[in-house]
């Protein structure tokens, strides 16, 4: 979707602000949000791409006015509603305070596939990869000139707006991976090759860009056409 998350090339956000001696988390709720996302991800009721898409569904005005972990919390709440773990009005009703009288079905749902303390180490260090062993043939060869498709899917996609319609060169073939667009929609993994595609900075940004600079973007077969 052409959302506020697709930030590459936008102007107006100001300088990059670096915080010296930055802590890993700036508040306890950030730590909890991170842990909840990891724990609920291990529940396997949704996949990584569905998780990203849920964060992208935050309305653009809200997305740009909030922080990284607020995006995560929004996405988690949306997914929990989608799988029926939370009722649509439940968070408003409990005012986001811990609901000690768990609603019916809660305990049974968690028992099934819950991440326990003993599982944390394994879950955190052995995350499911998106690389697939499927013997799918690549559509392009290293060195081939390609054009990123000028498409505007309303669902999840990992094709940034700033490369659409632009010419690039296949720099390397990374092998076969899950296709995020279908995976996020629950329509299967659609295994296909991912390439590192090299774009001249001037192809993307015009003659003001340095003639020496390049941007490398990882793109799937279904995002590319032969030149």
């Amino acid at each position, binding site marked *: 979707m052409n959302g506020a*998350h697709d930030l*590459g090339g936008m102007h107006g*956000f*100001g300088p*990059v602000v670096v915080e010296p001696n930055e802590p*890993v988390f700036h508040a306890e709720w950030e730590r909890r949000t991170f842990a909840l996302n990891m724990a609920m991800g291990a529940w396997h009721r949704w996949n990584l791409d569905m998780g990203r898409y849920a964060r992208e569904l935050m309305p653009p005005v809200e997305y740009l006015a909030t922080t990284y972990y607020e995006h995560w919390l929004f996405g988690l709440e949306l997914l929990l509603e989608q799988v029926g773990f939370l009722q649509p009005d439940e968070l408003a009703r409990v005012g986001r305070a811990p609901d000690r009288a768990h609603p019916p079905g809660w305990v049974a749902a968690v028992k099934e596939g819950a991440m326990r303390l003993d599982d944390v180490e394994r879950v955190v260090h052995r995350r499911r990869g*998106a690389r697939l062993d499927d013997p799918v043939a690549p559509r392009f060869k290293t060195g081939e000139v390609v054009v990123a498709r000028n498409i505007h899917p309303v669902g999840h996609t990992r094709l940034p707006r700033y490369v659409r319609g632009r010419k690039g060169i296949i720099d390397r073939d990374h092998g076969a*991976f899950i296709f995020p667009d279908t995976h996020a929609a629950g329509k299967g993994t659609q295994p296909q090759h991912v390439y590192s595609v090299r774009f001249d900075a001037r192809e993307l940004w015009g003659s003001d860009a340095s003639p020496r600079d*390049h941007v490398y973007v990882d793109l799937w077969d279904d995002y590319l056409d032969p030149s």
Partner: protein
Amino acid sequence: MVVCTLCSCYPWPVLGLPPVWYKSAPYRSRAVIDPRGVLREFGVELAEDVEVRVWDSTAELRYMVLPMRPEGTDGMTRDELTALVTRDAMIGTGVVKTMRAVG
């Protein structure tokens, strides 16, 4: 240098969780269109003849930069060299310096 314009993909197992600036709109928007300007804000001024390569982590592949070895470190041990490497040098927004250059 490495960026994720679409979310904030980052090599967690190697570098830990990313700093706020890496996840922020200014870095995600500008790293691809104005990498030299971003680098200047990190105190890195590159000559015109130096090529800048930006990697946008759009897939399930994570990138880090192997920092350039600073001059005058020929006699240094592995541990001494390791101590010079910074997180930013592995994101590509910093250059590894010797203590003499820093101080």
